[in-house]
């Protein structure tokens, strides 16, 4: 499996990562090597095997639809890069 420069750029965009042109070639090689490792699974027939949903076959637990946590907005926003009036500030996206 060999990823092209275009593939690397497309994956980087989906992952919201910036990969510079200098890094693209080496990143492509490293990812291709990992995919070669992963390809070892192709040797085993899994057509009749169920995918493993949970190691303990546990079902998702349910709880009453009721508020159980106190409001800690100020504490959680204290570490944000920028907030104003209880809102997270982000750069303008519409001029």
């Amino acid at each position, binding site marked *: 499996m060999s990823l092209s420069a275009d593939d690397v750029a497309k994956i*980087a965009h989906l992952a919201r*990562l910036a990969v510079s042109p200098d890094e693209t070639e080496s990143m492509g090689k490293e990812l291709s090597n990992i995919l070669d*490792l*992963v390809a070892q*699974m192709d040797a085993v027939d899994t057509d009749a095997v*169920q995918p493993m949903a949970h190691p303990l076959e546990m079902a998702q637990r349910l709880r009453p639809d009721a508020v159980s946590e106190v409001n800690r907005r100020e504490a959680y926003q204290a*570490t944000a890069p920028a907030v104003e009036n209880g809102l997270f500030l*982000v*750069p303008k996206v519409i001029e």
Partner: protein
Amino acid sequence: MHTKTIAELSRSLQSGELSSTELTQHMLQRIKAHDDKLNSFVTVTEEAALEQAKAADARIAAGNAGPLTGIPIAYKDIFCTEGVRTTCGSRMLENWISPYDATVVANLRAAGAVMLGKTNMDEFAMGSSNETSYYGPVRNPWNTDKVPGGSSGGSAAAVAARLCCGATGTDTGGSIRQPAALTGITGLKPTYGRCSRWGMIAFASSLDQAGPMTRSAEDAAIMLGAMSGFDERDSTSAERPVDDYVAALGTDVKGVRVGVVKEFMGEGLDAGVGRSVQAAIDELQKLGAEIVEISLPNAGLSVPAYYVVAPAECSSNLARFDGVRYGHRCDDPKDLEDLYKRSRSEGFGAEVKRRIMIGTYALSAGYYDAYYLKSQKVRHLIADDFRRAFEQCDVIVGPTAPDTAFGLGEKADDPVSMYLSDIYTIAVNLAGLPGMSIPAPQSAGLPVGLQMIGNYFDEARLLNVAHQLQLATDWHQQAPADFA
């Protein structure tokens, strides 16, 4: 006093022979004197530690103490700690101060443990050598030119060098057991769901599990008892009672069926490590255990399956780090997409980016069935191998890692070679089983780990077998000369 185990120190504290304040001051002094050679701590919480020690002394005086009360421990920097920086080994969280404690931290705090600080780790727990931390590599106390293993390498090095009495670690593909093996300590990854994952920064949610890193199985039993338990805030937490792990340590191993994995003892295993592991198995036989050969025919597929499942889950979990709500934000972003891309690219290191990219690819349209679904099917095959094996034996043993500690930088340019460091540990995470690593005889002056794997929630038996072996041998008592 740093040469004593948690169990020994606890007796000294309770008898009044020693105070937690004295013990904590001693450990803080050792960190100051030795950690510049190891880089095992990211943050040392001296003031808080002394306050907690004072409170522990009062609790002991009031006759309200447990076995961990007043014992100084360290937390891997992946555990959220209220009011204390939690970096996860990343620039992304360089200045992030958690507004809450992880449940594991809260449980240990309630038991009276004293927090010395936060230990260095591979960035977001991604690594097998502890070289991917933004805060620099950790060094192995047995040979500071070697790695301590990863990703809980800071915790492992700190425990091995006697800078703390015990530490927490997390294990997604071997990150407690492999560094425990490479530094000569005892590390236990419990059954998936045994310890709450709430407040533990998520890497791969279906694999991550917290566990203790200590100098003996007895100490691991003490710590695990305090760390474990159902937590309603973690939807994957197991709703079952916690065994009394310390009380379970008194049974001999006569008649215990010990399965040796034939696929783990051949090709790919360093000869010296193989001899050490065999010596530990022989000792178990001398103690009365019945040795049986078992097979895990699909274990060879565990590394390929892991490198789809773990990156897929990490790409999803790490999407939250976008520069908006917390963490690193780039300067002067020109729009929202620029904010996301530059914040993430500046905040994450190379290994984290590599795994996010692989995970994003594996989950992208057209590739999901070929990669993610296939891996989850292979995962079932691996778990079924273990189910069959546990029909023939009670405990499975083999090497923890294929080699002793390798040199700093030796595998840094070859991710696939690095990934194979966890070749014997990953299958346990994929199946969700408990596993531990305890010291076997050393090879060429470096520690070797004996891996022991138990059936689901059978940590008590695992700890007892390890304890019986440690009662009969002194492999776990060896200390690195420069830190003795």
